[in-house]
């Protein structure tokens, strides 16, 4: 049976996170013996044939002027129409802001089970099993699907894209009857955050600060380190609640759960709700003046010391590597 993948585009560009979902779809399709089919809603073809390189055999394109930006009702119709056309065993989304918004709507429309933010998918005895962190990562839940299609959204930065296959995907139109005027919710504007920063959930490297930073003015130190490492700045709940940093930067149980290649925790003691959100990082570095801080129990490498001395020295040393 086939695997359907929702292909996400913004501003006419396919988002790279889709390559991760296509990679996993390719592995599942090998186990289940079917093609990988993409579905994309856009104003015009954002270069979908190139997704053959990422594992797609075919991509269905629902083209409509109203689909240039995210249109929840229209995108839902597009994915549901693709499911009806393709009858897949599974439908995969990225657990991006768009995928998280869209997948439950599609699931409700299809009456299908959805597992969000999955970190692994497996075929066991012919049925799909999804593993997903719960309690912000304090535990892992495994779920099965009583019916097909099984719907799953995949946590960014966890699934590997396939290496270029040197082929192109067939692009076919998906004809929809979509009444734009009937939509009672519209995205009227997208306001870009400054600097075109990579979102925490998609960052390769994160530098996070906690109460040990002593005040919002000192986060410039972390921004310098982040610039040197090509990182995104994160924050603990304590500093977000104190108003030092915006909530979008919070890592932990009431913030974002992240899995970067490198997570640098600076002046963060390591409350359980923070650890839950970042312990799936590949490599964790902690800088803290308290050698007993719980953060050192999960850190691969730690420096005990004054962050106001250590961080600038670390920034300098990283800059030298790049020079």
């Amino acid at each position, binding site marked *: 049976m086939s695997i359907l993948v929702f292909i996400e585009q913004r501003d006419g560009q396919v988002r790279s996170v889709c390559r991760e979902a296509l990679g996993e779809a390719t592995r599942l399709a090998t186990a289940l013996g079917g093609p990988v089919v993409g579905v994309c809603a856009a104003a015009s073809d954002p270069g979908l044939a190139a997704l053959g390189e990422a594992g797609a055999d075919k991509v269905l394109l629902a083209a409509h002027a109203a689909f240039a930006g995210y249109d929840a009702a229209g995108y839902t119709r597009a994915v549901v129409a693709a499911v009806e056309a393709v009858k897949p065993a599974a439908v995969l989304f990225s657990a991006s*802001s768009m995928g998280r918004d869209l997948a439950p709507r599609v699931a409700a429309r299809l009456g299908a089970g959805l597992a*969000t933010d999955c970190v692994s998918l497996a075929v066991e005895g012919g049925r799909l099993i999804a593993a997903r962190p719960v309690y912000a990562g304090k535990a892992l839940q495994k*779920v099965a699907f009583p019916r097909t299609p099984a719907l799953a959204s995949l946590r960014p930065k966890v699934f590997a894209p396939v290496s270029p296959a040197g082929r192109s995907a067939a692009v076919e139109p998906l004809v929809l009857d979509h009444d734009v005027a009937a939509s*009672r919710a519209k995205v009227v504007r997208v306001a870009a955050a400054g600097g075109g920063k990579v979102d925490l959930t998609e960052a390769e490297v994160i530098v996070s600060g906690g109460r040990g930073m002593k005040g919002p003015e000192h986060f410039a130190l972390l921004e310098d380190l982040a610039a040197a490492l090509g990182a995104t700045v994160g924050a603990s709940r304590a500093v977000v609640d104190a108003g030092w940093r915006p909530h979008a930067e919070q890592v932990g149980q009431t913030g974002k759960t992240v899995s970067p290649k490198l997570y640098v925790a600076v002046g963060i003691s390591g409350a359980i709700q923070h650890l839950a959100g970042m312990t799936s990082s590949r490599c964790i570095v902690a800088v803290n003046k308290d050698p007993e801080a719980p953060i050192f129990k999960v850190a691969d490498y730690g420096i005990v010391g004054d962050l106001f001395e250590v961080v600038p020295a670390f920034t300098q040393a990283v800059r030298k590597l790049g020079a």
Partner: protein
Amino acid sequence: MIQVVCVKQVPDTETRVKVAADGRNLDPAGVTWVLNPYDEYAVEQALRIREQQGGGEVVALTVGGAGVQTTLRNVLALGADRAVHLRTDLPAPDPLALARALAAEIKALEPGLAWFGKQAVDDDQGQVGAMVAELLGLPCAAVACAFALEGDKVTAEREIEGGREVLELTLPAVVTAEKGLNEPRYASLKGIMAAKKKIIEEKPAALGEPNLEVIALELPPPRAAGRIVGQGVEAVPELVRVLREEAKVI
């Protein structure tokens, strides 16, 4: 205007998770139960709208076992007018089953706004609000971090990668709340006293067929012990070396 706020009782975020004997659910022993943190923002926004409009009704709605009524009482203490408890003794119904039970009740209440937290901090699915909207054919602003109501027009903002989406919706609508939407209030003593007299209506939850089957709950493997590379600034060259040569991350 009637507003419905759908809430969930969840383990406190400081909870250390233990797996129950069935190998599939949380061991509830010793767990402190609280109102889902994101639901606090939903409750707060509904109360503010009622206050701005100088009237209307805020109905708290939940699904769960007998124990969830303490959380409904807390929402009543914050200022909700009454509560409906859809009773089930299943430990953790799946999101679509929950959405169906909630949608049936919300439809009967005919609210102008139905509020949710963006996700519950126990199963972290983040599905139910958008599913209810879809089941009822209502527009939905999910993960809203800003909200304004003028007449029957809602303007909401949601964070996306590298920016914010600004949405416009027409009532009736569903909104799911993100942290930062507002600064939730605490219950006053007067509110706590008044809550004791407010009505919690109990009825069975119409969950329907399950849509997901939980087959296991496991604790993640502990991280291998790391090491302190040194003290203070002198340790920086060694840190850079191990990150480059051992971990190969810079």
